[in-house]
């Protein structure tokens, strides 16, 4: 059912005018003025509606926008300011995929001594740092950053976090790792990367 807002608006204006024909300038009230013979009668207007408001606001500005439209515009502005999460970013997605591939490839080398793979380890760590810093610099990207934290950061309060540093630490301490353990760890790291990639690919395109 359509509501005739302009009719309601006109009735309100007339009702306000009856209650308070000449409201003080400090009150926000609508009134109906009779046009001045020289200007309004020439333009063919019978009555002019004006707003008495604070002097800083131009009195006719809001009259350009009707009351229901004002409500709609306000709703649009309020909703538009409520974005929750960053948009999809092709570079962030590519970073996550590249890092996953490089990490899993390096893990295959854990059957060799840790010290013999230090250059490869440093390379993958650098790649991870780049991906992390890229995501850290994006606005409204806290959720993705928390996921990277679980993957990359060790926290004494949460000893289960830091999947990657815990793997490196075990490799460093043991010297070499068994293929069975490496395979199990690779599954876990792949699942963790997949979660980051899935969230990135699920984000809205701008």
């Amino acid at each position, binding site marked *: 059912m359509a509501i005739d807002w*302009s009719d309601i608006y006109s009735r309100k204006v007339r009702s306000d005018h009856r209650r308070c024909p000449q409201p003080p300038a400090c009150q926000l009230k609508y009134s109906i003025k009779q046009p001045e013979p020289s200007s309004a009668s020439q333009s063919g207007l019978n009555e002019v509606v004006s707003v008495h408001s604070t002097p800083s606001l131009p009195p006719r500005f809001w009259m350009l926008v009707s009351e229901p439209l004002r409500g709609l515009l306000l709703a649009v502005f309020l909703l538009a300011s409520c974005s929750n999460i960053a948009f999809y970013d092709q570079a962030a997605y590519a970073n996550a995929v590249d890092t996953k591939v490089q990490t899993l490839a390096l893990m295959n080398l854990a059957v060799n001594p840790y010290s013999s793979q230090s250059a490869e380890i440093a390379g993958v760590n650098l790649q991870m740092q780049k991906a992390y810093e890229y995501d850290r610099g994006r606005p409204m990207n806290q959720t993705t950053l928390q996921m990277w934290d679980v993957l990359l950061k060790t926290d004494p309060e949460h000893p289960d976090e830091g999947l990657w540093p815990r793997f490196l630490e075990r490799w460093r301490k043991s010297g070499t790792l*068994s293929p069975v353990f490496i395979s199990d760890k690779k*599954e876990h790291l792949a699942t*963790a990367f997949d979660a980051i990639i899935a969230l990135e690919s699920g984000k809205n395109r701008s």
Partner: protein
Amino acid sequence: MPNIKVDWNQVSREVAKLGEDIFQKRIKGATDDALDFLKKVEKDVIKLNLQLTAGQITKEEFDDLMSDQKALAKMEALKQKGLTQVAIDQFVNGAIDILVSAAISAIP
């Protein structure tokens, strides 16, 4: 004063339909993902126990791998949180489109 008519019933119907579509899809996605994750964890725990029993991994390695499950559960929860934020943004953007369309069509 122009005769401006906004069909608020139509606007609310469209917004409700949009919310229903987006959030039902999100709930289904989250439920499916959670079930997949639980099945995966179940299979993984059985596999790790078998490997430990067979001596393929040490107790220390077993504990380490079990700790991973907690971290992965956190990752999954964060992923679902992020995807829900995406769904909320989709709803907000869709609602804006509906409101803007209503505003434009209300102008005579």
